[in-house]
């Protein structure tokens, strides 16, 4: 069995120029702060695309990442909590594309689930429909939203076992679960690391097959 346990620095060294990154979390909740900090401090990859619900808050390292000039494109649903992302949008220094939160979650899920896209009624009649295919079914219009995938996903969990099974508690689940399914390389920052067999198979939120690297923090 491959040992998935590694350091934050080693794990984030997977991120290369031009990569697309998914970063889990909802504001400060379930945010993989230690992984993002390692990425900011020890990795110099540029031309990145970041997919994140909200690009975090000023207090988190993702603020520094967004500010570093290394991010050329951002997909998010809400950026009011990170003024730097707002600035990039206003100045055009990065391409910031906003999606309804449920649409963003569905796009990521579709990427992980091998779907070619999903039809959602959300965004019809708004700027969200710009550039998207509209499909009418039974006299109701839907937008065709295409899947999102990434090279690397940085996610946060409470507990991992040796095979990478994750438990994510409470409101920290948010985007961490779908993102784990939609990246070529998934790095999980965890508070607790236990032996194989110590997580009840009924309580696994992310099966270990999705997780490539585990970084124990704290």
């Amino acid at each position, binding site marked *: 069995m491959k040992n998935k346990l590694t350091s934050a620095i080693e794990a984030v060294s997977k991120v290369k120029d031009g990569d697309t990154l998914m970063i889990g979390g909802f504001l400060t*909740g379930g945010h993989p702060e230690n992984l993002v900090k390692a990425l900011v401090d020890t990795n110099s990859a540029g031309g990145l695309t970041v997919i994140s619900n909200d690009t975090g808050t000023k207090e988190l390292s993702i603020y520094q990442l967004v500010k570093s000039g290394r991010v050329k494109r951002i997909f998010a649903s809400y*950026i*009011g909590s990170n003024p730097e992302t707002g600035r990039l949008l206003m100045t055009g220094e990065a391409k910031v594309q906003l999606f309804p*939160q449920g649409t963003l979650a569905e796009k990521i899920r579709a990427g992980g689930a091998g779907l070619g896209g999903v039809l959602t009624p959300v965004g019809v009649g708004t*700027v969200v429909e710009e550039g998207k295919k509209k499909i009418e079914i039974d006299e109701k219009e839907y937008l065709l939203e295409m899947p999102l995938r990434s090279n690397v996903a940085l996610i946060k969990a409470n507990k991992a076992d040796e095979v990478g099974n994750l438990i994510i508690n*409470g*409101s920290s689940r*948010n985007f961490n679960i779908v993102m784990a399914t939609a990246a070529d390389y998934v790095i999980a920052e965890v508070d607790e690391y236990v032996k194989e067999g110590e997580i009840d198979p009924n309580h696994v939120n992310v099966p270990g097959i999705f997780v490539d690297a585990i970084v124990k923090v704290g």
Partner: protein
Amino acid sequence: MNNREFIAKRIAKELKDGDVVNLGIGMPTMVANYIPENVNVILQAEDGILGVGPKAEPGEELSDCIDAGGNYITTVKGASFFDSSLSFCIIRGGHVDITVLGSLEVDQEGNVASWMIPGKKVPGMGGAMDLVVGAKKVIIAMEHVGKNGSPKILKKCKLPLTAVNVAKTIVTDMAVFDVVQDEGLVLKEIAPGLSVEDVQNSTEAHFTVSPELKVIQV
């Protein structure tokens, strides 16, 4: 009692026992403070909670228990946690009975513009677009006029829309309107001491007056 409290108190009376309710950030969140004792509603937070309770006491904050506004909260008995994917199945799938949200503008067709002021403020739509499209009933909570006294209830929204034809009830410090399909705004209630003319003077939209026009009770 200030305007915001007045509005929140009036909206609280719209909630029925057993309703699943999502309260937006700001004034809508205040609605929770005024729910009658004999009415048990289930509060949803779109980051992944059903059964949101009061805010956490200082020192008792849990990192895995924050609401969609980033506040540390508690949960009530019978609560459940889930990820963003299921959260928006709940929202977009019509499993939320009532959503209350603030808005910049609303118009007589029920169109809502709540999420951006081009060139000025682009915080992102977050979950608002999904909520107004998916919830069974959309209640708009806002002060009747802007800071400069300009009407916010318009014939046609000028700002970019959140969704088309979704508002069902509009509650302001001056009035309560229902938005009736193919009929437009109907003035149902009016704040104590105001006349219909007062409301009309502060409202750009056309509206009819309900034959059962009442004074707002809070």
